[in-house]
């Protein structure tokens, strides 16, 4: 059966009856959804497959919690579970990476200068450098801030969408995003300062 043709509600009923074949079909069907979330939010030192496996195990053990939620597609419920699992993994990370100016490649340094206002208003052209620098600055943030900025800026999710995914209120999402950007600005300025020393 092609993955897109899976009848999820029927499959869930079979999984609830401990049907292993249905459970395997469900995992294969939902893997692309889960791995996309995991890749965007996993801690640097954790393998994406391990985290995806954790999400699916939680899905099976908490399946009964989904039963009563009429009208909510299973994929939404699972997305939220995947996001909170990633957030827990990020919170469990012992320490965040520390970047030094010397660690940055030339295109990243150009973007750093641009972000801090040291460079003229015209943005550098190296998109890969932008991605590397943006990801480095995001990785310096605390887990909750990192999650919000990744969803909001890199994935272009709406505030309401993020609120639904995380369970945080709309105003909390806005405040977190505002504070996170301020923290990234401070980190960028600190990194740039190292160059001047």
């Amino acid at each position, binding site marked *: 059966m092609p993955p897109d043709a899976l009848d999820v509600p029927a499959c869930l009923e079979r999984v609830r009856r401990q049907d292993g074949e249905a459970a395997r079909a469900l995992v294969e069907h939902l893997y692309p959804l889960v791995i996309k979330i995991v890749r965007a939010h996993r801690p640097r030192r954790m393998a994406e497959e391990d985290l995806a496996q954790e999400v699916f*195990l939680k899905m099976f053990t908490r399946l009964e919690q989904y039963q009563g939620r009429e009208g909510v597609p299973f994929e939404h419920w699972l997305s939220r579970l995947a996001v909170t699992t990633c957030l827990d993994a990020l919170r469990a990370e012992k320490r965040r990476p520390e970047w030094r100016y010397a660690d940055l490649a030339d295109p990243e340094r150009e973007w750093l200068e641009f972000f801090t206002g040291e460079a003229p208003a015209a943005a550098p052209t190296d998109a890969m450098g932008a991605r590397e620098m943006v990801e480095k600055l995001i990785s310096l943030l605390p887990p909750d801030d990192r999650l919000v900025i990744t969803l909001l800026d890199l994935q272009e999710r709406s505030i309401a969408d993020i609120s639904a995914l995380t369970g945080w209120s709309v105003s909390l999402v806005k405040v977190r995003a505002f504070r996170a950007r301020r923290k990234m600005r401070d980190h960028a300025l600190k990194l740039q300062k190292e160059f001047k020393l």
Partner: protein
Amino acid sequence: MNEFERRWNMGVNSARGAASTPPGDAAPFGFATRVVAQWQAQPDASLAQLWQRLALRVLGAMAIILLSLAAYDALSMGGDSSLQPPVENAVADSAWLL
């Protein structure tokens, strides 16, 4: 929007265009079988999690009750703090019987 945010948004727009080609989205060979085997190997997991959740809630409720009783006790220890010998004696007798 301040200057940093304006520049940050330009950087993020550029970064989005450079999204690295993700590895295949299909589950790796044997992944689903491994996950299902692990799930089936822990049949009591949901029960354990239910116990964990309920235990935490009960712990919270008990803490609130305990604090309320302590507060009530502290407030009711007014001017007359005389003991009540009959009650004390009954408790002491019961303790010996145990």
